[in-house]
């Protein structure tokens, strides 16, 4: 009995002990991939944990109420008594991002229709590279251009100093144009060819085909682009900060100074000491940004699910 088992084992050992080459490669690849994935997950979770632990500290310590921060209108972190009302920042972030999307979405949709339906060749060779180039320009350059072109233009033609919500929104709208256009173009290109032909064969004009078949069919993907654009605008700090005026108030018109969550964080971060209430309150703003980003991602997922149906 014993002899047979050991015999079997020794027979099997040449194969079992030395795995074939492809199996070893497979194992090596798997270890490598798992390691990378694990590293990524750990990084993301530690960032979230870090931001949340700092950002929630002011609430847990009882220095600031959540409602006071979300709805309060006065931001006076070093005053006595200190006030941490972040509503003007939230308002500024939303106002600039949504305005930017309102300006940018029609432009982006039209550009992508032009590139796919009207002049595909010119679109692919000239317009698309130009728009992709827009995505590569650093944000400080956008801010600089905004400060030297957009702000003087607004100052000369409208009331106020030129800096403010509208200036920020215009700069942002150019920055998110590539995102919206690229995603819209991809979705228009992936439209089944038969749909357009079907519409033309019924005697539809090109305009009727675009407005009643192409756009409604691709609407969820188009909106995905817009939401991703808003998400990018929401998180943009530098360019907006350069043109928005950075006044922690709720503006009464498009031409008044305001500020955004990102601007406040970048401007004040250097002046606080780690662990202070002021510093932790800034982390709370960062946490709000993070939560908003999650929400945007969630919306995009919902839209994608609608596309598949």
């Amino acid at each position, binding site marked *: 009995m014993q002899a047979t088992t050991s015999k079997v084992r020794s027979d099997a050992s040449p194969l079992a002990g030395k795995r074939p080459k492809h199996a070893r490669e497979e194992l090596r690849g798997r270890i490598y991939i798992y390691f990378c994935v694990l590293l990524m997950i750990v990084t993301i979770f530690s960032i979230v944990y870090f931001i949340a632990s700092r950002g929630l500290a002011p609430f847990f310590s009882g220095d600031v109420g959540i409602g006071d921060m979300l709805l309060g209108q006065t931001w006076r972190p070093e005053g006595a008594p200190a006030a941490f009302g972040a509503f003007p920042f939230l308002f500024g972030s939303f106002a600039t991002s949504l305005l930017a999307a309102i300006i940018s979405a029609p432009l982006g949709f039209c550009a992508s229709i032009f590139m796919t339906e009207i002049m595909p060749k010119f679109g692919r060779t000239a317009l698309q590279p130009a728009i992709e180039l827009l995505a590569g320009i650093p944000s400080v350059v956008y801010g600089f251009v905004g400060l030297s072109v957009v702000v003087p233009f607004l100052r000369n033609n409208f009331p106020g100093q030129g800096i403010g919500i509208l200036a920020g929104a215009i700069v942002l709208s150019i920055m998110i144009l590539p995102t919206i256009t690229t995603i819209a173009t991809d979705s228009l290109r992936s439209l*089944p060819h038969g749909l357009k*032909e079907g519409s033309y064969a019924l*005697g539809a004009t090109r305009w009727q085909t675009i407005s009643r078949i192409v756009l*409604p069919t691709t609407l969820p993907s188009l909106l995905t682009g817009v939401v991703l654009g808003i998400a990018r605008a929401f998180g943009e700090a530098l360019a907006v900060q350069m043109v928005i005026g950075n006044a922690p108030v709720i503006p009464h018109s498009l031409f008044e100074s305001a500020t955004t969550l990102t601007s406040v964080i970048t401007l004040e971060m250097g002046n606080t000491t780690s662990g202070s209430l002021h510093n932790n309150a800034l982390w709370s703003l960062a946490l709000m940004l993070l939560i908003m980003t999650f929400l945007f991602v969630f919306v995009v997922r919902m839209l994608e699910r609608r596309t598949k149906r």
Partner: protein
Amino acid sequence: MNEQAFYTKDLSVYYGEKQAVKKISMDFPDRQVVALIGPSGCGKSTFLRSLNRMNDLIAGCRIEGEVWIGGQNICDPATDVVSLRQKIGMVWQRPNPFHKSIYENIAFGPRYHGIRGRKELDRIVEDCLRKTALWDEVKDRLDQSGLALSGGQQQRLCIARSLAVKPRILLMDEPASALDPVSTAKIEELIGELKKEYSIVIVTHNMQQAARISDRTAFFFLGDLVEYDDTQKMFTNPSRKSTDDYLSGRFG
């Protein structure tokens, strides 16, 4: 002999330098089914697509010759393509219903052409669905997506959709080749019904299908029209040897 519905005269189609259809002159009798057969790449689909100017959509495609429909040469650049395509319905190999409800799929064409009244549209939708034998299958779910139907139903929906703009001629590009045998039989039966009212031109790779449903058959080979005759004669006693070879499966 039936009245003539339309005819082509020396019709050639070029893709760039390549001539895909070579000087084809054919006449199509009114209210009959004409089948176009031939091996892949012989120009039959291209020929079909030039009958309602769908080739306009393809860059680098050029048409020479004449297609006369209702006393009008539609190859004339001045032709109103929109009203032309209203007179000529088209159905493709792959069903391509719009991402809309069954009702909207059919109401779509009439809306383009200015019919807005709800009652009028209701009547057109029911009429077209009855003609394609879909009415009983879908009358309780007209507001459901056209994409929720089976492949065969989708194809009949597409036929119904093209009927809604009141065409006189129907062009079908392999309408049953992506369908199962039962659905195919339904489509063939439908074609038999529709030819009472419409002139039908159908491209098919299925020789039995051509024999079953068509009155006249045209055999295309390498862009040439080899033979065009009554279906019965073509399948029993073709006058060209290459037709005979193709029909009996000796090449192609």
